[in-house]
Structures are given as structure tokens and as C-alpha cells.
């Protein structure tokens, strides 16, 4: 049982090795992804939602001192992320083309490695591997966009790689600073967490480390103003890469904040730091300003987009702001909301990219003004796109709504009659809900409604193409209609995190 997580992580890697050695690419990849989904579902089903702490834990020592070990385990939060990864991976592999220019094997290997990176990072309970696994995705993304991207693929692939490289190095510095300040003996997260109380770090130190982590993770999440890599990259990337990156990998940063920064730096959030240009400002306030940047500024940028792919890319940047808001609320409601929202957003953006990719495949363009009436030409595509769009703008019945509503409630939990910056920011952030409805519905209106342009064709999805789409839609609906399916699992873990700073 405890080795299941190793299988989960290494299966995609083994599959890519097999593909590299000549195994049929698509078949192996789908097979591995299917097995992984099955394992994740099994883990999900057998997860004990009454117990806090890591389950299915296993450990393999790598270095004795400083203690690094390949330890894995799941709490509710990581369980949800693993499930998300498994679902999106299967769908991403499934919608991949059967033939590409160049090496098909490399195409599928890249997707599998991105997936393995995500799974590894979410399963790892050791800080070293938590970090290292995430970076596994860097090079496959670089290759995918650079080789098979569209438009200015080289430029954007270059930018995403260098930018994320910079982000991960900054993140590394932050994580190591945390490690040293928590004793510098062990990278095991549980051990580090246990050392927090004894270490009694000065609040300013904590705040500096938190800031570094915020910037490091922030770059990976495309936190404003470190967002400019994201939208062009997602727009240009091949469909499976956009799905995996926007759907899964980008959540790593948020997951990391919740897993590492929040519980291990309890005093870091509210201590003012003298920052250049900004004066004395706490990390929390800074985070709130930046997330408003994500929601409002990028929201407006999204409205101004003329291409569907860029619009989706920007929208995914924008929605990160809400997850941040959930984290900034600093209570279990907000955290739970953030986790559910990560799941919802991951699925919905993957679905949107999958469908948009299908359109691009056929029409060769995603310029909104050149598309129209697809609802009539391809009703299934239109219907599922509507589902995804509705999910993405946070309508009840879809997972995103459950997350968003919890995020908002979390921000106001215990606010009393005083409207602090957190609540003010939340109110401003709420306007983003209107903004996202504006761009989503406009795009949907232009692309799918109305009469088709003269001579336009758009074949509807075939039966085989419908399967991944239906899996994603079903995931959104199941969680959206009955959120406890996730919430019950994540509650004990989240409460543990929330408790870490309450003390």
C-alpha cells in the first residue's frame, strides 16, 4: 500500500523510458495515465478522512546528514492535487495528436514527465524532493513549446523557461533559508514543522523568508507582476502542455505556500518589512496588493484580448488571484476554498485548453473575430465549452464556485464590523467575478453563438475525443454539486495548517 505512491510517481517516468526505448508512444502513455488515475482513485477512496497527518507514507533515505530522503505521503490537500494531476494527465495525453512532426515519442514523454513532476512534488513530504520534482517539468515544457508550439513559440518558450528558472532559484534560496533557520538538520517536512515552535525565529527573519518564498512561488504561479510569461506560453504551447501546465503545475506554487510558507512561518505574515519603493509593508498586505493586480489588472488585460488562447491564458493568470486570496485569509475556510479552487480551476482550464486546442487544430486560428457559430456546427463542443466557461466564471454546480465562495467567506470570517485591508481587497476582488463573466461570455458569444461564418466548418468531437472531455466535465460537476467529497478529505490537514499559526 505504501509503495503505491512510488508507483504513482515513477510509472510515468518508466513509461517515458519505455517510449524512448521504442514502445508505442500513445499507447504506453495512455496506459500509464490510466493506471495512475486508477491508483489515484483508489487512494482517494481508501483515504481515511478522519485522520490528520500523512497517509500512505513511505520513505527511502538518500542522504543521512543533512537528512534527505525520498519520503512520500498524502494528506487531504495533496490527495486532491494528486487526483487533479492524474485526471488532467489522462486527458492531456488523450487529446494529444496521433502524429506530430518530429518525434512522437518525445511528445508523449514530455507530457508524462511533466505529470511525473507534478505528482512527485505533490506526494513528496521531503522539502528537497518537493522542490526537485517540480523542476522535472521545466525541460519538457521547454521542449514542447519550443518544438511544437505555435506563433512566436521560440520567444515564449524561451521566456517561460528563463523566467521559471529564475523563480525556482529564488524559491530554492527561500526554502534553504527556511531549512537552515529550522535547525538545518533535516529536510523532512514533518521534522521541520515540529522544529518551528522550538526555533522561535524572530518575526523579521520569518517575514524575509516568507517574502522570498512569495516571490519564488509567485513567479511559478504568475503572481502579478511576475505574470508576463504565462499567457503567451499557454497560448503558444501545444494543447497537452497548456493543460498540464496551467491545470496542474501552476498549482505547485500555491500548494507550496500552503504546505511550507504558511505553517512553517507563522510569524512572517504580519511583520512589516522595509521594502524599497513600498515603505514599511507586511507580507500579507503586499500579497493582497499583488493578488488584486492579478484579479483586476490581468482581468482587464483579459478583456482586451482578441485571441481565444491568449484570453484563456490570461484568465488562468487572473484566477490565481482568488487562490491567493484564500491563502491570505489565513483561516481554514479560506485554505479549504483555495484547495478546492485549485482543483476546480485546474480541471476547468484544462478543459478549456483542450477544447480550444481542438478548434485550433481544425481552423488554424483562435482569433475570436474569425470564429463564430460553432455551437451550431459542433453542438457537443459548444455545450462542453459552455460548461467549462461557466465553471471558470464561478457558477454554482461547478467545483470552482465552491472554492470561490469559501475563499470569500474565509476572508470575512470573524471580521466583525471592521473592514480591514483584507476585507477591502476581497470586495475589490469580487469585481473580478464580473470581469471574468464579461470576457468569458463575450468570447463564448462570439465563438459559439450566432450564425457560422460563410464556408466555416467545424466537425464535432468524435466519440473517442469526447471521453477526456466528459471526464473533465464530470469531475467539475461532481465536486461542484457535492463539495464534501473533497472537503471532508482535506479538512483534517487544513486544520492542522490553520492551527500552526493560531498558536
Amino acid at each position: 500500500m505504501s509503495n503505491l505512491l512510488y508507483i504513482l510517481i515513477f510509472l510515468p517516468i518508466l513509461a517515458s523510458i519505455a517510449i524512448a526505448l521504442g514502445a508505442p508512444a500513445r499507447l504506453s502513455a495512455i496506459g500509464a495515465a490510466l493506471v495512475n488515475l486508477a491508483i489515484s482513485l483508489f487512494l482517494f477512496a481508501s483515504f481515511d478522512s478522519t485522520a490528520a497527518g500523512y497517509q500512505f507514507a513511505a520513505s527511502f533515505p538518500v542522504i543521512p546528514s543533512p537528512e534527505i530522503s525520498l519520503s512520500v505521503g498524502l494528506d487531504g490537500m495533496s490527495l486532491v492535487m494528486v487526483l487533479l494531476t492524474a485526471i488532467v494527465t489522462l486527458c492531456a495525453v488523450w487529446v494529444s495528436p496521433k502524429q506530430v512532426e518530429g518525434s512522437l515519442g518525445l511528445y508523449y514523454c514530455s507530457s508524462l514527465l511533466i505529470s511525473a513532476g507534478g505528482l512527485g512534488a505533490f506526494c513528496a513530504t521531503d522539502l528537497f524532493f518537493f522542490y526537485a520534482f517540480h523542476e522535472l517539468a521545466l525541460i519538457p515544457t521547454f521542449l514542447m513549446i519550443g518544438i511544437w508550439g505555435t506563433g512566436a513559440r521560440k520567444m515564449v518558450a524561451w521566456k517561460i523557461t528563463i523566467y521559471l528558472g529564475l523563480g525556482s532559484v529564488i524559491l530554492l534560496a527561500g526554502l534553504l533559508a527556511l531549512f537552515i533557520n529550522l535547525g538545518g538538520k533535516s529536510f523532512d517536512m514533518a521534522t521541520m514543522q515540529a522544529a518551528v515552535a522550538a526555533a522561535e525565529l524572530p518575526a523579521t527573519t520569518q517575514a524575509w523568508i516568507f517574502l522570498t518564498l512569495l516571490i519564488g512561488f509567485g513567479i511559478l504561479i504568475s503572481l502579478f507582476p511576475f505574470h508576463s510569461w504565462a499567457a503567451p506560453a499557454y497560448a503558444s504551447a501545444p494543447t497537452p502542455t497548456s493543460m498540464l501546465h496551467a491545470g496542474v503545475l501552476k498549482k505547485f506554487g500555491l500548494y507550496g505556500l500552503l504546505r511550507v510558507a504558511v505553517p512553517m512561518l507563522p510569524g512572517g505574515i504580519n511583520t512589516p518589512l522595509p521594502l524599497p519603493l513600498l515603505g514599511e509593508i507586511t507580507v500579507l498586505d503586499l500579497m493582497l496588493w499583488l493578488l488584486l493586480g492579478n484579479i483586476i489588472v490581468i482581468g482587464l488585460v483579459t478583456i482586451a484580448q482578441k485571441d481565444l488562447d491568449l484570453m484563456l491564458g490570461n484568465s488562468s493568470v487572473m484566477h490565481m488571484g482568488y487562490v491567493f486570496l484564500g491563502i491570505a485569509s489565513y483561516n481554514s475556510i479560506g485554505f479549504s476554498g483555495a484547495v478546492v479552487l485549485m482543483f476546480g480551476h485546474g480541471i476547468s482550464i484544462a478543459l478549456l485548453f483542450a477544447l480550444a486546442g481542438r478548434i485550433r487544430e481544425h481552423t488554424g486560428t483562435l482569433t475570436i473575430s474569425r470564429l463564430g457559430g460553432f455551437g451550431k456546427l459542433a453542438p457537443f463542443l459548444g455545450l462542453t465549452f459552455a460548461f467549462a466557461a461557466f465553471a471558470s466564471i464561478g457558477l454554482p454546480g461547478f467545483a470552482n464556485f465552491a472554492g470561490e465562495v469559501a475563499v470569500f467567506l474565509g476572508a470575512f470570517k470573524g471580521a466583525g464590523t471592521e473592514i480591514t485591508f483584507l476585507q477591502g481587497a476581497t470586495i475589490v476582488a469580487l469585481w473580478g467575478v464580473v470581469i471574468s463573466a464579461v470576457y468569458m461570455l463575450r468570447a463564448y458569444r462570439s465563438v459559439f453563438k450566432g450564425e457560422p461564418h460563410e464556408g466555416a466548418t467545424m466537425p464535432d468531437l468524435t466519440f473517442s475525443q469526447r471521453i477526456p472531455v466528459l471526464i473533465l466535465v464530470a469531475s467539475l460537476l461532481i465536486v461542484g454539486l457535492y463539495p464534501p467529497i473533497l472537503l471532508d478529505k482535506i479538512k483534517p490537514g487544513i486544520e492542522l495548517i490553520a492551527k500552526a499559526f493560531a498558536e
Partner: protein
Amino acid sequence: MPSTPAIILFLPLAVAAFVLLASKGFKLNATVCALVSTASVAITLVLSLALIFGAKSDSPDEVVKLFTWADFGSLQLEINATLDRLSRGMLFVVTFIGTLVHVFSLGYMKDDAGKARYYAGLSLFMFSMTGIVLADNFAMMFIFWELVGVSSYILIGHWYTKDSAADAAKKAFLTNRIGDFGFMIGILILFGATGSITFAGVEQGLTAGVLTGGLLTAATLCIFCGAVGKSAQFPLHVWLPDAMEGPTPVSALIHAATMVAAGVYMLVRVSFLIGVSENAATIIAYVGGFTALIAALMATQQDDIKRILAYSTLSQLGYMVMAVGLAAGEAAMFHLFTHAFFKALLFLGSGAVIYACHHEQDIWKMGGLKDKMKGTFATFAIGTAALIAVPFTSGFFSKEAILEAALHHDMLLFLCAAGVALLTAFYMTRLVVVAFFGKARTGHSDHATEVPMIMLAPLMLLAFLSIFSGYSIIADTLSPAAVHSEFNLAIFLTSLGALIAGAGGAWILYAGKDKDPLNIGIFRNKFYFDELYSVIIKFAQDKFAMVVSAVDDLFIDSLCVNGISRAVNGFGLLLRRLQSGNLQGYAFVFGLGILVILYIALINT
């Protein structure tokens, strides 16, 4: 065995899902889908009747727990069913009109290609609306609030290949979103202050006085924002007339009788809030009164039969909101019920007319229909009578209740309400005269014939209720409290005067005319709100977004990100220059390096 409210709530959802899956996945016959959907709503009607008659007059209000939708440990969001007089009555109205509309649609949408989708949408709407009615907490209210928005979006845009319908759907949704933005803020402030999300909990908190002053007013107004959006009050009223692009039965159900009244219903639900916030109440009343007035003025110059009714709906909703603001929630609810019946009747009647005239909606292209469509005309006339408050129709009683509330509270609003009554009589008479009297002006109206029984029967039922729902026997069953007031001569005379003046004026002006003798541009063009808003949207949103996007692109991406990368590159080139290739230059660097290091080291010690 699930409880009755659970069935009422979830049956339509199950049916919606079933219809969608069966028609899309298994190519089930659309008519079967329609029948399944109709049957389900009929069942809910029966069950809600059972709820009404099963309840004893003194049975306490109860909250039936259905399930916990989300449990955050310190906060539970629950899907429950409140059962009290208010919700039972509303439930009946919703399911009753819903049933009739389903039945009517069997005829109206008989040959529509998207029939299955249409019925799925209707069922989804029934689910959502029931949810609003049953909600016992703000979260549930908000969830279903959003869901009715979606169903409305789907149904307005039913004929989605038509540009105007697609645009109208989008507009309706977005306008509602703005209202919901406020609604959510209100909910959050209340939650933050009282720590509770249930109506009971919030009320308890407010009674204890945890929230007072400006913030309370702000919260109340924010909550009211939700109603402004959903019930299309000024300044968010612009979506409702456009929503008439949807199929007419939808207009009857959603955009006349039930969903748009949800705002009023919600306000009555949270009347404890309005009760403690006087400033907010005043603003609410005036917003209602103002909406009633401008909508009535706009209605006088419209030519599209459905649009006239739409503006009339706006105006009547304004009445109700005004009543809520005047702390006369019962009057508002009373008017809501009667209005639901007669407005649904009018809409379905107009649907019948449109159906008969081959989807012609311009009243100036109709005429002389009273002889060709006798049944329709009769019921339509009854509906009109109720709407313009001909004495002893239901509308008369309910409007009277509101007028009385206005008279007691605020003279200005009373005068406004009276003026609206006059205008209502005017434009409705205009409609009836132009469309049904005179001679046929086009071939469409000339060849119109009476609609089939399946469409006429609902009209008759509604006509019956339009007259009699004002009387205690029905009204007291539906309304949250007894509403019939003492006879007040002043009000009676005002009401009657307005009726006679309005109807008489219209008759004199329009009898026998082939085109509109009046042409008041500002009314015809709806006070230019649409134009104003499109300018605002263009500049405050689209142009601004373009500017922000350009700044983002130029400043953050080009200047900062690419700039830094260029700077680093340039720095690299500069350093590269140092590598001159000259051997003695290199030797010189050695020497210089030593000197610099020595200098620094010796300075340091």
C-alpha cells in the same frame, strides 16, 4: 423516503440532467423529454399544494434539513428547506405557473429544433427557483440566485444562432452579475459581523446589535443590489426588455412571474434587515418608485407587444420594491402573487397572439384580432383589467395595499405610484386597442386563427386566478399575512381616477389609428440608458482594458521583463569586451587585480 421539499427541489434537477443526457447521448425523442419535464413540474405542483393544505394555520415555521453542501469545520453551508407561509405560497405560485408554462410550451415549441434543450433549461430553472424559495441561508440563496441566472441565460439565448438573442442573453447575465457582486458583498459583511450565514443567525445577530450605523446601511444596500439586478430595478433594469428575445413562455415564467420577482421575495425574506436600517429602506423605496415611473413612461411608446409587457413588468416590480422599502412586505408579496398570475396570463396571451401571427410582434402590424381569437382576447382582456387595477380584480386589491402603504409613509411616493397607475392604464389600453381592435393591418394578423386548446387552457386558468386571487380565500392562503386593508376612500378614488384617466386617454388617442399619433423620442428610446451604458462600457471597460493591457505589455513585459533581460545581455556584451584577446592586456588585468585586491584588503585592516 426523501421529504416532500427534497422532492420538490431535486426532481427538476434530476429531470434536467435526464433530459440533457437522454437527448444528447441517447437521442431520445424530444417530445418524450418535454412530457417528462412537464410531468415532473406537475408533480411538484401537487406536492406544493400538499404542503399548503397540509399545513395547519398555526403550524410553526420549520426548516427541513436536506444536506450539508459544504462543511468547513467552523462553518457549514447547508441546503435546507424553509417552510413557512411565505415560502409555501411562493412555491405554489412558482410551480403553478411553471406547470402552465410547461403545458403551454408543448404547443408553442412544438416544432422547435431545440425542444429537448428548452425543456432541460425549464427544468433547471424550476430547480433553481425552488431553491431560492426554500433557502434558509444566504449561501443557499446565492447559489440558486446564480443558478436562476444561468437558466435565464440559457433560455433567453435559446435561439442562439440569432444575434439579438445571443446578445440579450449575455447582457442579462452580465447585468445580473453586477447585482450579484453587490449581493455577495452584502452577504459577506453580514457574515463577517454576525458570524452566521443563516437568515435566523443573521437576524439574531442584528437583534443583538452587532452591526449598526453606516456599515449596516451599506450591507443592506448591497443585499438590495442583488434584488436590483434580479428584479431589474433602476439602474440595472436594461436587461429585462432585451430578455424578451427568449421564447415567449419563458418570458412569462421567468421574466414576468417568478424569477424577476425573486428579488422582491428575497427582500421580504430579509425584511428583518430592512426593518433595522431606515436609511436603506428609504433608498430602496425610492429606487422602486423611480423604476416604476420611468418604466411606465418607457412602456407608453413601445411597439413590440412583448416589450410593452416587459416594461410593465419593470414598473410593477418597482411597485413591489417600493412596498418593501416602505416596510410593507406583505403588500409586496400580495402584489407579487397577483402580478404573477395576470402577467403570466398577459405574456402567454401575447405568446398566443405571436404564435397566431407567425411570430409577428409589432402591435402596429396586428389589429382586429378580437374577432379572430376570441378566447385569447377574452383572457387577455381579463389580464389587462387586473393589471390596470379595474376594481374587484386581483390587481386592484394588491395595488391598493401598496398605495395605502405609500400614503401612510411618503406622500411623494404615493403621488408617484398614482401616476404610475395612470400610465399603466394608458399603455395597456393602447396595447389592447391597437392589437385587438380596429382592422387587420397586415396579412399575418389577417390570417390569424385561434390557438389550440393546449395553449388556451392555461390562459383560462390564469384568467380565473387573475380575477379571484385577490380575494381573501386565495390571497390569505398564499400571502405571508392577511393583507386586505380597511376600505380607504381616498385611495379608492385615486385609483379609480387614474384608471379612468389613463384608459380613457388611450382610447381616445388610439381607437382606429393605424400608426402612433404620439412620438416622444425620450420614452421611445428608453431615456437613452442603453446608449449611455454602451458608452460607459466602451470607455470605462473596453478602452480602459485596452489601455491597461497596453501598459501591462509595455511596462511590465517590455520594459521590466524584457528590459532586464536586455540589460543583462548588454552587460554580458560589455564584459565580453574586456576579453580583448591581447596577451599583455591579460597580464595587465592580473596586475590590476592584485592592486585592487591589495587596496581593498589594506583599507579593510
